[in-house]
């Protein structure tokens, strides 16, 4: 019952976000209709970082408690994070083409999302190269945490040291948000909607993982 409420509430919320993004919000100068990418690209990028964080969290839990469930949860979070990372990279690339003329520029923010993609891919490559389950879990967890430690360099330090083409409405030196109020409402709603969508997908993955473990223990 609660699941149904969550499911339909999410459907309604995201539908309203999409409608607002296309019909209600004004357009930014120079970008025209492509402004709308903002409402989908930034939340996708935020969710992939969130997924990465959750993956690292469950990796730490696995190393401390050694319960295989935590390893499966870390893997699930990373799988979802990979999907959102691909979405964020592709939408960001489209926006880059429209704003700055080329699909890929190795701008520091572009580089950081690409590195996140590589870290996810490397994590899955590592896991598939190990057969023994406990070892796969432990080494995957260590790599996930180790990679997590180097990511702040990309997200925070490199854009400060090097000039970036990325617009900075949210992370700028005055910490002010310079957006029209209707854009702000839609943007924050989209952010919230994407986060809840990710958590809903993750919750379903948790149910699936627990069922699989139960089934395996019954055999």
């Amino acid at each position, binding site marked *: 019952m609660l699941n149904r409420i969550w499911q339909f509430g999410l459907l309604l919320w995201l539908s309203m976000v999409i409608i607002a993004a296309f019909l209600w919000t004004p357009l930014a100068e120079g970008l025209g209709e492509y402004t709308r990418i903002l409402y989908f690209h930034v939340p996708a990028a935020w969710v992939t970082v969130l997924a990465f964080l959750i993956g690292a969290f469950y990796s730490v839990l696995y190393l401390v408690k050694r319960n295989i469930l935590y390893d499966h949860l870390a893997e699930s979070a990373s799988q979802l994070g990979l999907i959102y990372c691909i979405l964020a990279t592709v939408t960001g690339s489209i926006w880059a083409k429209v704003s700055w003329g080329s699909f890929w520029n190795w701008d520091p923010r572009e580089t950081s999302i690409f*590195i996140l993609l590589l870290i996810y891919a490397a994590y899955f*490559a*590592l896991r598939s190269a190990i057969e023994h389950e406990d070892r796969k879990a432990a080494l995957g967890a260590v790599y996930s945490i180790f990679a997590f*430690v180097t990511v702040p360099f990309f997200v925070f330090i490199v854009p400060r040291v090097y000039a970036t083409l990325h617009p900075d409405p949210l992370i700028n030196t005055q910490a002010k948000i310079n957006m029209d109020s209707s854009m702000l409402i839609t943007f924050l709603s989209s952010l919230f909607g994407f986060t809840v969508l990710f958590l809903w997908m993750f919750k379903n993955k948790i149910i699936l993982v627990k069922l699989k473990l139960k089934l395996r223990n019954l055999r």
Partner: protein
Amino acid sequence: MQLLHDAWLIFLKDVRQEFKTRYSVNAILLFALVTLVAVSFSIGTFNAGSDIKSALLWIIIFFSAMSGLSHIFVREEDKHTADTLKLVAQPTGIFLGKFLFNLVLLCLLEIITVPLFFAVMDFEIKGVSLFISVLILGSVGLSAGATMTAAIISKASAKGALFAVLSFPILLPVIIAGISGTKIAVQQTAISEASGELQMLFAYSVVVITAAILLFDFVWNE
């Protein structure tokens, strides 16, 4: 102090073992030379700009590191000496000893390859001390990240390809800062000009070595 003593002994053991076979040293040096020759030959008489040459130098260093820095752990697994080593010292001491070995190996590689690169590629820089600071800090960062990743992949299959794939995202800040610092060294002589890059390299080394020491126990005792 037992820790540092253990680390030093393990470092000496690896050096002695290396001198018997010279496998790692040969592999890494020859790889660097082959890459350098390939690059120089491909560019030919065309005068590539100093930006491109800075990038090429770090690409050569990075890929040579990828070919040579994993032997330290892979050899332990292949020769089945890893179990004995576990009995001999604490994991942190083992990591520090192996990290020191990789650092010395990388520095040896750079002592030979970098002057060759400068000569063959006709690469001139004004800020020599700045460049050397960037190179040393970059080497520390590269060795730290590579040693930890080598420990992780030594327990997996498909070790060679996996090593480069796992290392690249982690070592990228070093490559970015290294290339940028080298570009600055071409024009400027004062160390303060590249303070951003040097600070980033130093911070990265500290963070990675600390994280590696904290996590190495879990990898080593698998």
